[in-house]
């Protein structure tokens, strides 16, 4: 820096004006961004749930039966008088401020379409209050137990749904044979040989598994009759899940009774799903959902019932009871219910020409199947490329220069418009390699290429952030490069790699342009039968509905689709974040 010449006045005053202005400018920037996003989301939610048609009495009923008891539960679990007072003040004061403020804006400035002060209160006051009490309560034993249980219930069901959806495109009879003759014997061989320490367990198990696979594919050609899908799921998924849950409880030193209890309830959950079934979902998927939900819950309960704060386990009952009570009040008093778009029927039925019957089911299934394939493909390719570039490729000489060139190109590829990837997919996968126009395989490959630069770059960052000391330490112990990569670099870098992949997947699930280019269908009426079938994805269907002449489509049905997409995205990100945090903790 140059020496100030004008310093004869000693330590003068430095103007803080610029600093203050900058601070407020950045505050303004973030407020504008957040406000725009919040307004958009509020409108989408209001449209999707038809809240603008909700009567104040309906809102009040559910507020009293559902929201107030929930906040009460959280406050009880926190049991801090000062905090309770603060929350009460926020709820009460917020009521007055929103009502007065909203009315003032409506009468003095502009009318706000589609919103009432009750809805504004719900989103601007009640939602933040619920979020903050939830956050604080989750750090108390009582709240943690309750949220843990609700999380297991919801998470187990969501996972079950996801697996059930994957099985739509899998040849179930073949899977039944492969499991019975390949997976099961291979697992048995592995367990037996590794316990007795004979030979090389992995190789032996793989051999048995491959042999079983060969036998199954042959048998599949011959056999004509198989158990129904529900039974296949019960045998190939619910039984191993029960065994796994029992093993987990044994590992955690559960009593024999607890182990047996977990196993039996899991089977019962699966069996219950089998018996109950559902006309909307594909046959037998109740088994997967039931078993997954019950297994997750039972394993958790075995530990949680003995812990401090076990009264928190009543939270699901409180929520269910509140919902039932609300429904009962609405029914008996005869309060008109709002015209909701996002309903269970919406998620389980096919698109329709009539807004009231329109559903997103085939598109949801298509999106989930594609994103599952993209996740596997892009993770494998991305991590592989990143590890090679960082750990193996030389960084000097001709090879080094080539590596740097590739690096620059990867970074630039991330900025190529998605339509271009669509063209690439159309030319390469659909035409040249003959994977078919608009098939799930073509779409998954195209989207994987689209997000590959992002996954490679973030995986490289993760590999690079592993301290060199660790590598050197590993080499000093006499480890080979492969052992170092496998035991040191990959485990250290895994959370970072997962984060990058999650973010990239979020982009892939919302992409429309490449799907249009590869000829993905706008509308299909049934879920894809296999990965070589043509499919539709959520953004495609939403885009088509946005162009329908009827206003019900453009507002209600589209909004419900957007919220569904957001929920799937959140569920996906949530799962990945949980896995990542687990890995970080274990390490």
């Amino acid at each position: 820096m140059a020496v100030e010449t004008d310093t004869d006045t000693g330590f003068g005053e430095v103007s803080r004006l610029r600093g203050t202005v900058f601070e407020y400018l950045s505050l303004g920037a973030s407020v504008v961004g957040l406000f725009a996003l919040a307004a958009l989301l509020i409108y989408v939610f209001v449209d999707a749930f038809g809240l603008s048609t909700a009567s104040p009495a309906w809102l009040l009923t559910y507020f009293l039966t559902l929201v107030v008891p929930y906040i009460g539960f959280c406050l009880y679990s926190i049991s801090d008088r000062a905090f309770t007072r603060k929350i009460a003040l926020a709820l009460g004061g917020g009521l007055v401020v929103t009502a007065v403020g909203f009315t003032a804006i409506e009468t003095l400035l502009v009318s706000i379409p589609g919103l009432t002060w009750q809805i504004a209160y719900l989103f601007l006051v009640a939602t933040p209050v619920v979020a903050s009490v939830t956050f604080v309560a989750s750090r108390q034993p009582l709240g943690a137990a309750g949220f843990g249980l609700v999380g297991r219930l919801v998470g187990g069901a969501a996972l079950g749904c996801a697996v059930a959806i994957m099985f739509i495109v899998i040849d179930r009879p073949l899977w039944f044979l492969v499991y019975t003759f390949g997976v099961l014997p291979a697992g048995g061989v592995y367990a037996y040989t590794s316990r007795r320490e004979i030979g090389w367990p992995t190789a032996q198990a793989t051999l048995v598994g491959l042999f079983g696979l060969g036998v199954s594919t042959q048998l599949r050609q011959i056999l004509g009759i198989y158990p129904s899908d529900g039974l296949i799921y019960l045998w190939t998924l619910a039984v191993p899940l029960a065994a796994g849950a029992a093993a987990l409880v044994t590992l955690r030193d559960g009593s024999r009774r607890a182990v047996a209890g977990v196993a039996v309830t899991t089977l019962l959950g699966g069996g219950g799903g089998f018996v109950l079934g559902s006309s909307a979902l594909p046959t037998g998927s109740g088994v997967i959902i039931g078993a997954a939900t019950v297994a997750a819950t039972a394993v958790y309960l075995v530990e949680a019932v003995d812990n401090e704060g076990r009264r928190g386990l009543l939270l699901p009952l409180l929520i269910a009871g509140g919902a039932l009570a609300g429904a009962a009040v609405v029914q008996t008093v005869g309060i008109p219910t709002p015209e909701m778009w996002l309903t269970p029927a919406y998620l389980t039925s096919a698109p329709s020409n009539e807004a009231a019957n329109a559903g997103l089911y085939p598109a949801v299934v298509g999106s989930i199947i594609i994103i599952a394939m993209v996740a596997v493909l892009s993770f494998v390719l991305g991590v592989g490329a990143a590890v090679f570039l960082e750990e193996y490729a030389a960084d000097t000489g001709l090879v080094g220069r080539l590596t740097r060139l590739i690096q620059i190109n990867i970074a630039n590829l991330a900025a190529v418009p998605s339509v271009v990837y669509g063209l690439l997919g159309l030319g390469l996968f659909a035409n040249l390699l003959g994977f078919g126009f608009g098939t799930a395989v073509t779409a998954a490959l195209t989207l994987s290429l689209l997000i590959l630069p992002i996954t490679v770059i973030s995986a490289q960052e993760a590999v690079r952030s592993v301290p060199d000391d660790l590598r050197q330490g590993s080499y000093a112990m006499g480890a080979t490069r492969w052992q170092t990569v496998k035991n040191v670099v990959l485990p250290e870098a895994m959370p970072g790699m997962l984060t990058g992949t999650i973010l990239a997947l979020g982009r892939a699930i919302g992409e429309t342009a490449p799907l249009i280019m590869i000829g993905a269908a706008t509308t299909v009426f049934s879920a894809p039968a296999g990965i070589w079938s043509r499919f539709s994805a959520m953004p495609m269907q939403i885009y088509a509905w946005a162009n329908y002449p009827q206003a019900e489509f453009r507002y209600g049905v589209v909004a419900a689709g957007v919220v569904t997409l957001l929920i799937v995205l959140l569920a996906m990100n949530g799962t990945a974040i949980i896995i990542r945090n687990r890995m970080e903790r274990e390490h």
Partner: protein
Amino acid sequence: MVSTQTGDGRVTRRTALASVAGLGTMALAGCTQSGSGGEEQAINIAGSSTVFPLMSAIAEDYEADNPDVSIDISSTGSGGGFSNFFCVGETDFNNASREIQPEEEELCAENGVEFVEIVAATDALTVVINNDNDFATEMTVEELAQIWEADAAETWNDVNSEWPDEEINRFGAADTSGTYDYFIENVLGERGHTDDYSATEQDNTIAAGVEGDEFAIGYFGFAYWYQNQEQVTPVAIDNGNGPVEPSLDTASSGEYQPLSRPLFTYPAVASLSEEYIADFARYFVDQTDNEQIVAEDVGYVPLTEETKQEQMDKLEAAIEDAQG
């Protein structure tokens, strides 16, 4: 749970196991499936976004009765559907809001794709203006051409001296759209289409643009206006016999000229050799005079009894040809 019970826990467990076993046996006895999943019966459709709502309404009804058939429909625009999918043999049907063009016929011929032209419905291409616009509610075809031709008028006043001296803001169909081609062919002819306009495949973008600007003009299919009559005002078109407003009646009687147009779907002859595709094609043609679906639900003009019969004859000939 079980672990908290002490006295009769053993009995509970045994009962539970027994009931699971019983359930399993019962299920095993009753629940089998045949492993031979039949060949997937897929029908691939692409093409015009104008015909898309009609095709998907009919396909929806067909799928409800024939759950084994899986129909997928892409809204790609007439031209996009022909050149990218239909004429390279990827789709079984292509919807179009205009007739197939010579270059597309050539492309189809190169790839050995034969097709048959089926009229699906009649549309009344609707020119719309802002609800506050009270001067241009009636227009001659010549005035319309002056607004949309390649060397388009700048202001409303340039077109008609009684109209205000305000700039014209145009919202129209993109050049991949059959609506665009039809508009050129029947209104503009040699004079070409202006490129000084907001081009889109999305009707609601056009409507929103016109709704928000007093001196805007736009055009799109009749269905959009039919379902949103409050949003914008349709222009009555004068083709020399006095101004005629677009409506189901004026379009089907032929009074609304030159903007009432036929909508098409083109089944590929090779596809019709599959019985399930032929069956769907017959069902489609059979529904083209269904007032409820075509007019009420979608907003197009249904075919008359005779036109439908003509189309059916054409289709039957093609099916016979294909299945030969």
